């Protein structure tokens, strides 16, 4: 924060003029981009619909009540399916992620080329969300829980492997050296040096991912991945708002419970 000297003694400003101008230009640039983007969206928007939205919202909210509690009987089995989907999706993802992460980590990868391939798989599976994977998988294995489970698993591979291989790269090397210096084989070094050090991270990441997968699996049914999302989609299409609210409420409760379990479980392993 410069002190400038003008005719009548020192003068303090929080920024010198050049910095102030640069800042102004950056903000101006940001604003211009913002307005261009906004205009672009405005052009694509049917403003009549937007004007109508409050009435629409009031209408369907009013039709949510009284909720169709009898529908719970259909919702609960499908919620159970959703849980299975999330659990198995996570399980499959973890089983594949462990070797993949070992191949992708700098310090454990057998070869630079293998590492690149592993990283490519991680990047691809990670950058595409599970809903898009479900869209592809539904056409291959047919709509249903199996497609949803695979979609959750594929996305999970990318997310879990990334955290796993970062954990492997950050491992404390001294205990590894100690185990090596006892004459242990490579497999034994893994077992006694790597596994115990990585266990907390692995468990934490897995539980965390399971929680996210519960959320994801509630919507995977919208594109044909089975579970509670499928019911949600059909209730919306049939304009049965009294059923929609039952489903939404169930999803909310499930997500909260999952969050709670995951927080407790992560506390326990630390």
């Amino acid at each position, binding site marked *: 924060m410069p002190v400038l000297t003008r005719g009548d003694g020192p003068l303090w400003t929080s920024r010198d003029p050049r910095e102030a101008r640069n800042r102004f230009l950056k903000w101006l640039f940001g604003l211009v981009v913002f307005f261009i983007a906004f205009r672009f969206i405005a052009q694509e928007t049917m403003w009549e619909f937007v004007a109508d939205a409050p009435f629409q919202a009031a209408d369907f909210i009013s039709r949510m009540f009284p909720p169709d509690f009898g529908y719970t009987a259909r919702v609960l089995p499908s919620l159970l399916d959703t849980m299975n989907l999330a659990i198995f999706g996570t399980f499959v993802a973890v089983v594949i992620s462990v070797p993949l992460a070992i191949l992708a980590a700098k310090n454990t990868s057998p070869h630079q080329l293998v590492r690149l391939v592993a990283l490519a798989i991680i990047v691809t599976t990670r950058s595409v969300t599970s809903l898009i994977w479900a869209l592809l998988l539904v056409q291959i294995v047919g709509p249903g829980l199996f497609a949803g489970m695979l979609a959750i698993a594929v996305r999970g591979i990318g997310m879990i492997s990334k955290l796993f291989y970062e954990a492997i790269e950050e491992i404390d090397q001294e205990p590894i050296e100690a185990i*090596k*210096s006892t004459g242990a084989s490579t497999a034994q070094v893994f*077992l*006694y040096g790597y596994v*115990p*050090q990585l266990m907390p991270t692995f468990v934490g990441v897995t539980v965390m991912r399971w929680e996210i997968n519960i959320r994801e699996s509630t919507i995977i049914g919208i594109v044909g991945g089975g579970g509670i999302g499928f019911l949600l989609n059909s209730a919306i299409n049939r304009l049965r708002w009294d059923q929609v609210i039952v489903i939404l409420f169930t999803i909310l409760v499930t997500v909260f419970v999952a969050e709670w379990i995951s927080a407790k479980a992560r506390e326990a392993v630390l």
Partner: protein
Amino acid sequence: MLEIRQLKKKYNAGPLALQGVDLKVKKGEIIALIGPSGAGKSTLIRCINRLVEPTSGEILFHGVDICKLGTKDLRATRKKVGMIFQEYALVERLSVMENILSGRLGYVGFWKSARRKFPAKDIQEALELLDKVGLSGYANTRADQLSGGQRQRVGICRALLQSPDLLLIDEPTASLDPKTGRQIMRLIVELVQERGLAAIINIHEVNFAEMFSERVVGLRDGLIVYDKPAGNLDSSSLTTIYGEEDWEATMPKLDSEDESCEEVSS
């Protein structure tokens, strides 16, 4: 039993860490390796079990050049060369017993070690070692719950359990307070002498080197500049190893500290 000839090590970025070290170690000999930080002490002992790959030179262990060994023979050699680390290098989330038994990994197959099924003889020996270092009853304690001194004791047990002929000991006291450090040094020397092992001890404290070893070797800038039986260090040899400093002023202070420790640890 160990003969190092013209050992050189160059790290990717940087000058020669070892510029041609020659060193002979006899059976049962305890050598203290002293020198300023960055002199290459740590590199030297890590070259001996090839945790660091030497760039050139020979390391003859029982007449076999360690530098030329393939993976399998290297592992067999490592079994016979125990190592004790500055930061203990325990696997924190394993129990004390598992840490100690990991010293036997070179002798036990993969599946046996995975199921923690070690031969009864190994387990018995491990328990005896625990008694000897004063950690009876800690077998199932997790390593991360021990104090520094206790961890180093576990580290010592692990190295001894692999029934080595040679022990490489890297700054065993640098992470400990003076009193505990002294106890640990005494324990190491006691156990090494009892088993007739050879040992190379990297050590910071010059007075420990003089007190606990039979031979003191000084390393400076990757070269051996001093090699005499213990008890011969004077201010001129310290200057050779560490460079210019007013040694007369420091030496008496170290001595008085020793005496005060003597009382507590006995």
